[in-house]
């Protein structure tokens, strides 16, 4: 074989290796996506049982004239039991418990919310879709096998027979699970939602941005435009680059030791989480901002100085506006990274069971990644699909943020 043929063959082989590597990585991404979507899509659908609900005044502590607060405070456990008795007549005590287990434990809350929204319903009969319990839901979705011995099933034979009879009467149906988007966390998979974690992450990122962006911008402007380069700036520069590579758990320890330990800030609140994420994002922002400040041509600075602008006017009127697209891009990418960061949240306690949706940065909360972690730890099958659905949501936010970063750069970048 001639030398040229050898070289061409080598090139062909190289192309093949490259294509193989690319295909393999794409394949893994596809498997990951398939797994997440096939597992997670179930979380967006909820099994419901159709029932005639008679809002019997005898079992309701409040009347249609009661205030919303009173309605929300009252107990509807008796009413829920009554509804089950009406729809499944002739149950003995043992079977009643079995049937009750087929409905969500939060049955009474569902009734309460319905009354709160329609107070006039008391004394009337309404046809409602009641959420099934998670175990029943999993059976209906086919995630739990039916054809195994009763002892290995979460749903016993009696419940299965009830399920089949309900199904044959057309009482079983599936509905879009908006609870996943409107509820906080719950012990019961069927009522657990992501909103609490979403708001927790939102407040944390808000704090992170308001802390890291101005400080990062000012630090980079000072380092790049005002301070004279020397030994000290060299040391600072090396340290900033090092800090950008420090594992996030170290920042979590910093938050735990300094913010909570020394400054006495509360545990598991987005304020602390946001500050810790801010520490983590700060070096990224400074590096991105300095790079984009350096990208502003010196001729612009000279032009402004030559008409008698002060150093500060030059920087604030001309240099910073021109460098802002780059700075913002770096900030958004840094925040996207912060959004997915789990370790710091674990250390500062944003990984506890929180039912309430946080109303601000000072309320206990979890974050998206720590909520996913929490659900993944749960034994119940119903949380598995929540985990994947949470990952889908997190990935969507990351994709959105990175897309915004690209758009900002494209849209605002000045062409020279």
């Amino acid at each position, binding site marked *: 074989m001639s030398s040229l043929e050898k070289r061409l063959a080598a090139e062909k082989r190289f192309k093949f290796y490259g294509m193989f590597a690319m295909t393999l990585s794409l394949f893994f991404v596809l498997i990951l996506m398939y797994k997440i979507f096939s597992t997670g899509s179930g979380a967006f659908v909820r099994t419901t049982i159709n029932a005639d609900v008679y809002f019997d005044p005898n079992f309701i502590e409040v009347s249609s004239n009661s205030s919303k607060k009173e309605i929300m405070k009252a107990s509807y456990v008796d009413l829920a039991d009554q509804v089950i008795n009406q729809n499944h007549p002739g149950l003995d005590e043992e079977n009643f418990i079995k049937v009750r287990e087929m409905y969500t434990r939060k049955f009474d809350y569902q009734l309460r919310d319905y009354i709160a929204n329609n107070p006039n319903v008391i004394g009337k009969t309404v046809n409602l879709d009641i959420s099934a319990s998670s175990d029943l839901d999993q059976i209906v979705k086919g995630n739990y096998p039916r054809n195994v011995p009763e002892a290995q099933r979460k749903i016993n034979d009696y419940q299965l027979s009830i399920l089949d009879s309900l199904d044959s009467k057309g009482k079983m149906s599936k509905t879009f699970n908006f609870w996943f988007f409107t509820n906080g966390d719950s012990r019961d998979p069927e009522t657990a939602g992501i909103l609490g974690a979403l708001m927790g992450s939102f407040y944390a990122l808000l704090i992170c941005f308001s802390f890291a962006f101005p400080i990062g911008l000012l630090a980079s402007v000072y380092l790049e435009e005002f301070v004279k380069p020397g030994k000290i700036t060299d040391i600072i520069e090396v340290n900033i680059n090092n800090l950008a590579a420090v594992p996030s758990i170290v920042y979590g320890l910093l938050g735990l030791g300094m913010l909570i330990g020394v400054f006495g800030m509360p545990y598991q609140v987005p304020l602390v989480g946001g500050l810790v994420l801010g520490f983590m994002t700060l070096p990224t922002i400074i590096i991105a901002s300095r790079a984009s400040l350096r990208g502003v041509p010196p*001729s612009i600075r000279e*032009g402004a100085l*030559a*008409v*008698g*602008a002060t150093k500060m*006017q030059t920087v604030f*009127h001309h240099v910073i506006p021109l460098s802002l697209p780059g700075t913002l891009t770096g900030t958004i990418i840094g925040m996207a990274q912060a959004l997915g960061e789990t370790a710091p949240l674990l250390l500062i306690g944003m990984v506890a069971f929180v039912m309430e949706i946080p109303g601000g940065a000072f309320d206990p909360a979890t974050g998206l990644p720590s909520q996913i972690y929490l659900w993944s730890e749960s034994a119940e099958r119903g949380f598995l699909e929540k985990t994947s659905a949470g990952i889908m949501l997190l990935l969507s936010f990351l994709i959105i943020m990175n897309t915004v970063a690209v758009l900002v750069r494209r849209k605002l970048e000045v*062409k020279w």
Partner: protein
Amino acid sequence: MVDQNSNYALQTSEVYVHYGKKMAINNVALNFPKNEVTSLIGPSGCGKSTFLRCLNRMNDVIDICNVKGKFLLNGNVDIYSPDIQVETLREKVGMVFQKPNPFPKTIYENVAYGPKIHGIASSQNELDEIVKDSLHRAGLYEEVKDRMDDIATGLSGGQQQRLCIARAIAIRPEIILMDEPCSALDPIATAKIEDLINELKENYTIIIVTHSMSQASRVSSKTAFFHLGNLVEYGETGKIFTKPDKEQTNDYITGRFG
């Protein structure tokens, strides 16, 4: 050489400039007569641009640059005195750079920026007038009057450079420094700028660094020839280009080196 003769817009003597340890200007003394155009010529690296940038202290921003010497504005203002605010100096001594460097803002904002930061205009109307007048003097008004809100970087190179001249004169300087203002322009744009320089000298003292000897002879009445940081010869432009005293000057203008 420094005297109180008020016919000079700017007088300099004993000027030394060092970049770190490297000498860039070696004992230069040069006076610039009012309302005349003075050309600084010489081969690349001879220090003519460095010298020009001393005149409005643009070298201040270069950390390693060390300027020594006497610089008197209007015979009495020492421009390197600690009492002098460099911003006020640059209000009096404007500058146009080698490469057109308009701000990436609108044409209007480019010209209005200087007057705005110095508070020259007391009302929006007055500012509009200053912008219009400056663009007029820079010979650009007719070309841009319908698109004052367009981004300036969309103008042609020659238009951008005239915009930079308008920006410089909008703050009503006494002296305009031009650092090879035509080196990035085509011959037609160059001719326009040269015409403009001829008009501007009525009102301003102009000091221009140029590589083109024909340009120096066309626009300036006085010419200074620099070589290796030294001022070799200074005199009437006509004389420098026809009967220079020094052989070095003669060699340069006849193209034997440089």
